[in-house]
């Protein structure tokens, strides 16, 4: 076993452990933190495959932004854990059946005669000047430019839709309008009155 394989097994084992903890641990905040750990290990596996752009982007997008917002929401929710775990036994047979089916299907497809080591030869190593990011960018903006643009457009539509669904103006909120605040001048707030001085009686 060489060093790379050792690293692979460490990261893969941690990934599986973290993913299991996400669905079994009772505390939702801890579950979210285990999901962060799972993302980190997935990124490490990608690094082992020399896909550094994907690995760092996974950390940047999912760990740095998505999970922060996830934690933000989960921490503010007051989740009743006992209620959440009700009906576990009721759903266990169906859920278990689906799980076993998934496992079987995956083991058929990902079996040795389709994805075995003989079928998938080890890719040739790259020289030191090879840049994963550059290659990805070149392919994405030339060969796959239309799918890329369409995906971007769909995302923009989704963002606008999400905002327009959640945006509502309540009359009762006391929010400030910065434009009006800036426009305020001294004479709107302050009145200087000229008064003649009076002699002390």
């Amino acid at each position, binding site marked *: 076993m060489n*060093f790379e394989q050792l690293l692979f097994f460490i990261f893969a084992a941690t990934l599986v452990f973290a993913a299991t903890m996400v669905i079994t641990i009772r505390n939702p*905040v801890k579950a979210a*933190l285990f999901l*962060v750990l799972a993302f980190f290990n997935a990124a490490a596996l990608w690094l082992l495959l020399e896909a*550094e*752009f994907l690995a*760092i*982007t996974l*950390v*940047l997008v999912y*760990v*740095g*932004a998505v999970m*922060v*917002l996830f*934690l*933000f929401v989960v*921490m*503010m929710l007051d989740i009743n854990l006992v209620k959440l775990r009700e009906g576990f036994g009721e759903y266990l047979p169906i859920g278990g059946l689906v799980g076993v089916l998934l496992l079987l299907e995956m083991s058929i497809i990902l079996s040795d005669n389709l994805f075995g080591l003989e079928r998938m030869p080890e890719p040739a190593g790259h020289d030191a000047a090879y*840049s*994963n*990011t550059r290659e990805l960018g070149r392919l994405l903006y030339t060969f796959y430019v239309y799918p890329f643009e369409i995906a971007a457009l769909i995302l923009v539509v989704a963002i606008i839709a999400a905002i327009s669904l959640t945006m509502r103006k309540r009359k009762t909120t006391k*929010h*400030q309008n*910065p434009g009006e605040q800036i426009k305020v001048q001294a004479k709107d707030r302050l009145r200087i009155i000229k008064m003649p001085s009076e002699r002390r009686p």
Partner: protein
Amino acid sequence: MNSIMDIIDGLTAWVGLPEWLQSWVHAGSFNLILVIVITVPLMVAVAYLTFAERKIIGYMQARIGPNRVGPRGWLQPIADAIKLMFKEIILPTNANKFLFIIAPILSIGPALAAWAVIPFDDGLVLANVDASLLYILALTSVGVYGVIIAGWASNSKYAFLGAMRSAAQIVSYEIAMGFALVGVLMAAGSLNLHDIVIAQSGNFTDWYIWPLLPLFFVYFISGVAETNRAPFDVAEGESEIVAGFHVEYSGMTFAVFFLAEYANIILISALTAIMFLGGWHPIWDIAPFNWIPNIVWLLGKIAFFAFFFLWFRATFPRYRYDQIMRLGWKVLIPVTLVWIIFMGSAMYLTPYGDYFH
């Protein structure tokens, strides 16, 4: 360096470790020594940045600042460190013990790990990673977890409010920061920090601060917001929520948060110097300026930007929360977007494209 490695190799051979373990020990200890060479001066710089802050803000407010410990107060940070080390670490009731302890570590870890890719001079870098700009961006975004976990694990309302504020603020400003870095990436045509500095070689007119001036301001403002420093320090907000996310921390756990904040200041200053101010390059590449070693130029630029952080703290009042969000989303992000589009069109559609490279 070589003699130290020889000693380590001799030791492992003398103990009689197997061959493969010897090579692991060799590689591990070699990198460990390099890490120590970077980290120890960084920690000293962090300690003296706290001293500099107290002194500089003191003079700006017409005070003297600390002047009791050592000559002119120069031993103050050491006294502070010893005091904090001997203080008791108090665990709040019902706090999550593991997360409470690990939160300061999570906040200082990324701040130190990012230094792995900072080039100090031509070839003087711990890891010349190809996507080092992305790596830096990813690590600075991970730093927020320390704050969030600290706020949640403390089991305190004030700490929790601080964590929530910090999370929203950092996520918002990261976008502006990322877009500002996209400009740098477009100008240099590389994600490698070493290549970015090389692309700015020459005189100070070749630095990216001139073609990317709006992005430079956006980056530096986002950097101040990202480090939770004044005027964006709503996560701490002494007058509103006591000390925010680290209100329950004491002793060394508090000190680690403090170190992380100052390490982040130095990191953001270093990145600004590398990406916009030509890294290790001197102002003019002529006689009296290029006699000074390159690394001194880089350190000088870092100190220059670090001074700005202290200056801001003494000058500006704290932003209100909605003003922070407004500045991030409605001012900084549009500025970066407009400048990126402007740059892209100028680079490929006009004959002035060279100016941006």
